[in-house]
C-alpha cells in the first residue's frame, strides 16, 4: 500500500464514498502516520471522532433518568416475586404430594399388622 493509495482513500473519505472496510484501513493508517500530507484528514477524522464520543456520552447520560431506575427496580421486583410464586407453588405441590405419600404409607402399615386385640379376644372366647 503506497501513499497515493491512502491519498485516494482520504479523498473518498471527504466524498463520503468509502466502504467500511476502506474506512477502517484508512483509520489504521492515520493512527500510525506522521506524514504532514495527511494532517488535514487526521484533523477532520479527529473532529468527528470527538463529536461521536460526545454524542455517545450524551446518550448514555439520558439513560440515567430516574424513571429508568424505577423501571429497572420494578422489573427486578416483579421477576423476584414471579420466581418466588412459581417456586412456592411448586414446593406446596411437592409438600402435598409428600403428605399424601406419607398418609398412604402409614395407612398401609397401621392397617396391615395383625389385630392383636381381636385375636386375643377370639382366643379367650374360644377357651370359655
Amino acid at each position: 500500500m503506497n501513499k497515493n493509495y491512502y491519498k485516494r482513500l482520504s479523498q473518498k473519505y471527504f466524498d463520503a464514498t468509502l466502504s467500511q472496510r476502506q474506512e477502517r484501513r484508512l483509520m489504521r493508517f492515520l493512527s500510525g502516520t506522521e506524514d504532514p500530507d495527511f494532517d488535514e484528514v487526521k484533523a477532520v477524522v479527529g473532529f468527528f471522532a470527538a463529536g461521536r464520543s460526545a454524542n455517545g456520552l450524551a446518550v448514555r447520560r439520558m439513560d440515567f433518568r430516574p424513571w429508568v431506575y424505577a423501571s429497572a427496580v420494578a422489573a427486578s421486583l416483579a421477576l423476584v416475586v414471579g420466581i418466588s410464586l412459581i417456586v412456592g407453588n411448586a414446593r406446596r405441590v411437592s409438600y402435598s404430594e409428600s403428605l399424601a405419600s406419607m398418609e398412604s404409607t402409614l395407612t398401609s402399615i397401621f392397617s396391615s399388622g395383625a389385630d392383636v386385640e381381636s385375636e386375643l379376644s377370639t382366643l379367650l372366647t374360644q377357651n370359655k
Partner: protein
Amino acid sequence: MKRLTVILSALFLGTALFAQEGLYVEDLFEGRVISPKIMKQTVISGSRLEAYKLDTYKSLSFQVGEGAFHQVEILLIKDSSAATDKQMEYIEDHLTYAVICLPKTYTGLNRFLCFQAKEDKDVWDVTVVYLRGTASVEDLDSMFNKRNK
C-alpha cells in the same frame, strides 16, 4: 472466628438432632447398606406434620434380593432390642412387619420404627419408616388404621 464456631456448632447440633439418634437403621437411611440409587426416600419435618402430632417423618422404600433384605432385617431386629413396646410379625423366619416403639428422645418425644416387607419371586418390596413426635402409638393407630374406621 467466634461466629463461625457458633454456626458450625448449630449445624452439627441440627444434624445430630435430625439423625435417627443412635439407631442401627441409621446406616440404612444414610445409604450405607443399600445404594441410595435404588431407594426412594421421603423426608418431611416441621409444622406441616403438626396435624399428625409428629415433627419428623422419614421413609425409605426399595426392592432388594434375599441377601440385602437379610441385612435390613438384622438392623431392625437389633433396634427392636431397645424397644419399649413392639409388634413384630414373621413369615418363614423372615421379618415382614414391625411397629417398634423406641425409647423417648431426651426432649421427651416419642420415636417409632415401622417396617413392612412383601416378597414376590425372590424380590423383597421393603418400606422402612422412622417417626418422631408427641403422638403415641394409639394416636397413630387411630389416625392411620383403616380397620378402626
